[in-house]
């Protein structure tokens, strides 16, 4: 069986991800921006599939595209946008933004140049066997080796939930 991850799919998904990511920041209409963000997230799910991690791809779709983005759109529709556009915009900090993104890009390039050994070209060839039991592997690693970080992350989320409830409710 031939590998499904042909270069065509990689370039196609990369193109989709970049174009829609640019659309996210250039669209004036927030709903259009949110929809473009969904396309970006779906292309990322495609990348996870190409890396033989179907579970991560499915979770990406369920949580990000299906859950979080629905809430985003929900909030955007509820907020009165016409009024917000007329108000003073304090997010025009493009000089700082350019410097920050250049620094991040430089960092990524530096990591890629120096740590090339960590990205073997036959990366997925060695991981292909894992595709069949990807879900089981993630479960074993998450609840075995990385038990403590996992629990800490869930505690953090719990704190966030309690905070949200306290802020939303005047009287508990």
């Amino acid at each position, binding site marked *: 069986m031939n590998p499904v991850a042909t270069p065509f799919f990689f370039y196609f998904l990369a193109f989709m991800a970049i174009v829609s990511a640019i659309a996210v920041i250039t669209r004036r209409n927030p709903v259009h921006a949110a929809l473009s963000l969904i396309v970006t997230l779906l292309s990322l799910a495609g990348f996870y599939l190409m890396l033989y991690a179907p579970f991560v791809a499915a979770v990406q779709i369920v949580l990000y595209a299906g859950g979080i983005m629905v809430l985003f759109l929900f909030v955007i529709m509820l907020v009165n946008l016409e009024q917000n556009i007329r108000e003073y915009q304090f997010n025009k900090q493009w000089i700082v933004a350019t410097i920050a993104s250049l620094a991040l890009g430089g960092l990524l390039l530096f990591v890629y140049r120096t740590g090339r050994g960590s990205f073997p070209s036959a990366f997925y060839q060695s991981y292909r066997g894992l595709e069949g*039991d990807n*879900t089981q592997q993630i479960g074993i690693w998450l609840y075995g080796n990385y038990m403590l970080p996992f629990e800490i992350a869930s505690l953090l989320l719990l704190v966030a939930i309690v905070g949200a409830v306290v802020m939303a409710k005047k009287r508990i």
Partner: protein
Amino acid sequence: MIEYIKGYLSSGTTPGEAGNMFWATVYILLVITGVSVAVLCMNWLERKILAHMQIRLGPMRVGPHGLLQPFADALKLLIKEDIIPHDADKFVFWSAPVVVTMTAFTTFLVVPFGRTHAVTDMNIGVLFMLGVSSLGVLGIIMAGWSSNSHYPLMGSLRSSAQMVSYEIAMGLAIVSAVLMTSLQTGTGTLSMIGIVESQAAQHTWFIFKFFPLGFIAFAVFAIAMVAETNRAPFDLPEAESELVAGFHTEYSGFRWSLFFLAEYSAMLAVSSIAVTLWLGGWMRPFPNWLGGTAWDMAFSFLPALTFFVLAAGCFLGTIRMPKIPQFRVQTIGLGTFAALLGFVGLVLLVPGVRVRIQDIYWFVVKVAFFMYLYIWYRGTFPRYRFDQLMKVGWKVLLPTGLGVLIATAIWGLMPQLSAAILGVLQ
């Protein structure tokens, strides 16, 4: 080429696993056709059954007993004027029904109609279905927002709130069923075929496993799936008395029919999840009580028998038609339909067909039962208020689902737990 096509038939797996493009395409086309035909049947059956529940006759004019009504409706929708509101967001308005329909049909990729009768088997089958059907919500939101009108916006807001909150209860119920798959082998599975096979290996359907835990999980799912598909009594997003028609108020003609198609195929999809996870998928009932080859043989005649009963019903209708010239065409039509059903029944008696059709038959019968339940709910339950809906979702189904999940885990680990406790005591 011929070898390529024939080679799959002896592989004993799904076309996706065998990597056979030809049969995968054939299966996809078959599934799309089957789902569309099922939606047509559902359209007729729903109107007929609802009518009989309310002591009416329902559609009677187009064809004998209104049998051709869905076709007439489809034709009407196709030739209706397609209106896009002036201030609508054209692109989003155009793409919303496409998104809804595509996601509704994509979920059927992993539905196992039998061990070999699925397009493909995925390692993440249930998650795939949940994920793709959760993308359908986006289509509904897009439709409501892009219509640039108040009722659709309200409808889509309600719909998204409802779907997001019921997805959680649904997910918890599914997880407790997935936990049960890990009981004998130690490693669970999310693959739809794997889940059915583990039910076969444990000699029980998961609805009866750990009674009443399996049943409670199933009940949570069965309630959540009605809310998830926006059907009565949870049909607030399209409550006629409050919101005209909800998120698709501004849609007309073919685009509206796409929403209709998507809604019914989503119902079929969630029903197939329920059937696969709790009702043993493609397996026939009573495999333990009425086991053995003789009973296998007896059960294998049921598909043909069903068609014969349907044919007999149609034949009875043909006889009872009024004997006046105005009804001649209808009488001939119904008689032909009866003959057609009888012929299908005869084909299903052929040994080769009889063995292969078994699993599909049982799967479809179980899904049809859920479809009937949907109609039954619609005919009998009053609609919930929105705050009641949220209360049921968050305060009843979610804690129940969590409790069942924890209880299932504890019950499943009972041997190890009791051994550990005994070890401490000694």
